[in-house]
């Protein structure tokens, strides 16, 4: 039986691929590739830009612009250019590879898995692509699928700190917390400067119910990091306090994170969640709106806005929010959507 898959991030086709680009555009593109291969990222980007200005459907140029932004760690832009390319061309190796990685770095794991898995129709995945695929599967909570790939990478190079972290994340997902902590400690031994690993260790101790150890790693991380790197630890700290129903301290931690990184949708989502728990639904909706403006694919933001909308008796909008959250992959939202609240 055959069926057409609904592409999780399907966009309207505004233009079909066309290789009949103008000579001038082609020339700019070729020069862009030369500059890119020479490591002249800024020059390359300008040339690709010129190519797309001349030919707005120049998918190859867009995907290379995405790759440049990725290399520059501008992941949001990398994703935007990757999507533009994919909007024009659906089935190309470089699009699946670059867009998949960009999705991963933006925390959109299902789409990352979708793209990265499709690389295989062109050629075997590189170690790097395998790494992103496994990490994306962890993000998408397919820990069994992630383990198959992570195991192979780890066997290849057991002294790679990132592979150890990946194995730790897989073990965490599979509930093997002691193994995960051992993986993280080994990763730290290899690369002591990777302070983010403290947060992974803290997550494991929370699961093990060893809260004192967890909070000590969180505080260690907060002390050892600066600026944006601190945010992950503050979220963790907020979630820890929320777990012990200390809403005021949880709110304090999220507010501190927000002050550092006001564009972080996850932080805003958690601020909204606290407002919901404190029954300040109107403010929660405003926060969710803000989170959605920062990350239109934040299922948590839609889910929470649904709860807040229901509580201010805007049930129709609540159901619409849950529908959006469901489309973005929230199983909990599906339960609400199927309830009598959304089905008269």
């Amino acid at each position, binding site marked *: 039986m055959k069926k057409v898959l609904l592409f999780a991030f399907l966009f309207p086709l505004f233009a079909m691929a066309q290789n009949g680009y103008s000579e001038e555009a082609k020339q700019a593109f070729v020069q862009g590739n030369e500059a890119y291969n020479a490591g002249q990222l800024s020059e390359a980007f300008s040339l690709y830009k010129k190519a797309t200005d001349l030919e707005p459907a120049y998918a190859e140029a867009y995907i290379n612009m995405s*790759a440049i932004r990725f290399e520059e760690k501008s992941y949001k832009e990398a994703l935007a250019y990757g999507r533009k390319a994919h909007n024009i061309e659906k089935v190309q190796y470089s699009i699946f590879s670059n867009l998949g990685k960009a999705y991963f770095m933006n925390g959109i794991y299902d789409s990352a898995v979708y793209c990265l898995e499709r690389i295989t129709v062109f050629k075997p995945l590189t170690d*790097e692509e395998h790494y992103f695929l496994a*990490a994306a599967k962890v993000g998408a909570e397919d820990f069994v699928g992630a383990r198959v790939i992570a195991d192979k990478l780890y066997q290849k190079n057991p002294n790679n700190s990132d592979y150890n972290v990946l194995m730790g994340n897989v073990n965490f997902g599979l509930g093997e917390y002691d193994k995960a902590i051992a993986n993280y400690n080994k990763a730290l031994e290899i690369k002591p400067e990777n302070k983010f690993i403290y947060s992974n260790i803290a997550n494991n101790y929370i699961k093990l119910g060893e809260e004192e150890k967890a909070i000590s790693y969180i505080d260690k991380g907060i002390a050892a990091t600066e600026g944006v790197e601190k945010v992950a630890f503050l979220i963790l700290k*907020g979630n820890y306090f929320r777990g012990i129903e200390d809403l005021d301290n949880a709110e304090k931690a999220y507010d501190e994170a927000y002050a550092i990184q006001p564009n972080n949708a996850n932080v805003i989502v958690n601020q909204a969640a606290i407002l919901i728990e404190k029954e300040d639904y109107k403010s929660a909706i405003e926060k969710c709106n803000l989170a959605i403006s920062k990350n239109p694919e934040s299922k948590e933001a839609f889910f929470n806005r649904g709860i807040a909308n229901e509580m201010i008796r805007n049930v129709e909008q609540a159901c619409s929010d849950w529908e959006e959250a469901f489309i973005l992959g929230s199983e909990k939202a599906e339960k609400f959507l199927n309830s009598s609240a959304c089905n008269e």
Partner: protein
Amino acid sequence: MKKILFLLALLVGYNGVSQVVDEPFDKMVLGDKPGFNNAIREIKLGDLHFERGSEEDMAEALPHYMVADSFHSKSAYLNYRIGVCYLSSTQKYKALERLEFVKATGGNEKDYPDLDFHLAQAYHLDGQFEKSIALFRGYKETLGESDAEMRFFINKKIQECKVGMELAKTPVRVWVDNLGPQVNSKYSDFGPVISADNRELYFTSRRPEGNIGKEKDETGYLYEDIYFSTREFEGDWNAAQNIGTTVNTKSHDATVGLSPDGKSLITYHGVSRKNGNLLITRKDANGEWEKLENIGSSINTDYHEEAATLSFDEKKLFFVTDKPGGLGGHDIYMALWDEAKNTWGEPVNLGAPVNTEFDEKGVFFHPDNKTLYFSSSGHRTMGGLDIFKTEYNAETNEWSEPVNIGYPINTPDDDVYYVVSGNERYAYFSSVREGGFGEKDIYQITFLGEKKEPLYASSGLVSGALPIAERAVAENYEKTDMVIVSGQVKDKDNGGGLSSVITFMDANTNEKIYEVMPDANGNYMMVVETGRNYAITSTKAGYTLASENLVLRSEDEGKDYVVDFSMQRLEEGAEFVLRNIYFDFDKSTLRHESVDELNRLVKIMEENPTLRIELTGHTDSRGVTWYNNALSKRRSKVARDYLVSKGIASNRIETKGMGAKQLEVSDEAIENFATVREKEEGHQRNRRTVVKVIGQ
């Protein structure tokens, strides 16, 4: 000096330290004010009724007291009497303020011997359970040995307060809304019943608008009439209307129950104070209510039948009566419809654990056909009648222990006549509450379900950011007309993955375009060019053939297709479909592009020389039956002839034609397809040759 005193008075007032003082109706103080004599006269008239002590007398006394109260409201005596009257009325919530005033003035046991008892009741009704318990306990101490009945009553009240405290700790998440002026009036509106789909509401009202009889009973209110309101999907209730003279009479007519489909309405007809009967009316084919009739001689007695509910199939009737032989007070009974006699059978008392020695009233059987809601003053109530639910277990033929449906649906006052919509999102009941339109109003409960916990985004598990190993710089794309095809090959018998060989042939040219081997789990994924009609087959030695067809046009570029295969071991009974056997339109001439799939079948027959098969031809549904039958038979024979021409013995092949008798895609489904292409693909799936292994 006067100025100083005035200033002091102001300061005291400002600080809010004012003492509550009893200011009796003293002629020396109030005698000069106009209306004093009238107020005294009204108090005396009120006292005449009050001293008699019945509920009706209290109702008579209250208006007189209120006239006096409008003249002077600071008398402890008057406030006490007004408070006690309110406790007997439908506006019980107004009692507390009056009785607290009396207590604050220093009203004591000597002047008001039952003040603490009444105040305890008022606190109970106001949900101030701890204060209520303290006062009830104190009052109990004052009782003599002979007050056993009162002692029993107070113990029950204390128990109710304890239940109230417990239920209030875990309130049910609901919204309670007055149904508004479209439904409610300033007169008594009560007894709501609804259809399961929540589109029709019937209730009882004493409003003058539309009232049939326009006559008043001994209470001074109009006789009750039945009204109804309707609503559209997701809409509000429309303005209520009198149900009309077929159902309403000049006397009392009250709603009791409605069948889930809204087509049978049970009403109550009061014969006397102690005798009431149930009547029923049904909607005719035009949607008009028929004449009311007695619900049945086995149901109605000389006692008080007052509430009833029908099961979804209208084969069970639950009703309430206080006829002798029950467990005490009003009890719930059930009767089954006797098809043979076309009447209700002999009712059976539901017994324990549903019925108690106290009253069970206001019964409602949910359309789920197992949940019975009812009110009781005998189970664990938080005051008066509370609503409970019990579930029927068809296997054990038992009712579960009734459960209090919780606060704030239940309150310390009487909660009765409660109906729930089919999807259990809404319920309706009547109540007298602050902010209502007057007297009883109909309220809607919206159930919110379990508390919805918000989601917290996690900082989650952080992954390392791998350094970029190698730049994958895109060159100009050479091919742009591609789709991705993926799927799984499964063993039909055990569901496990199969590693077979999947071949994509161009169905028009018989040219092999792609060949892929799925992984050990049977999964495959590949990129496929558009612009071809693919005949796809999955083959594996010892297994049946699996075949699919996939037409890819240029507009399909970029889509993802899933093509799964299910294969069976070549054993007797195994069956598979050949989807790429083509004939000329309306003919039984085999087309050239069919040979690949038939050749694969030849190979299977050669590799399994004892295999015997049956070929069954199927057509689509276009064309007349006899023609399709003949065509499908001819086509299966043509396929057999091809196999025979390739050296397969004819006695190994049987043929059948099914015409359009066994469609894979129904005509209705095809009709609902949006595009011509989808419709054609639907017909294509129906045109197939089924191969069945009939011997091995």
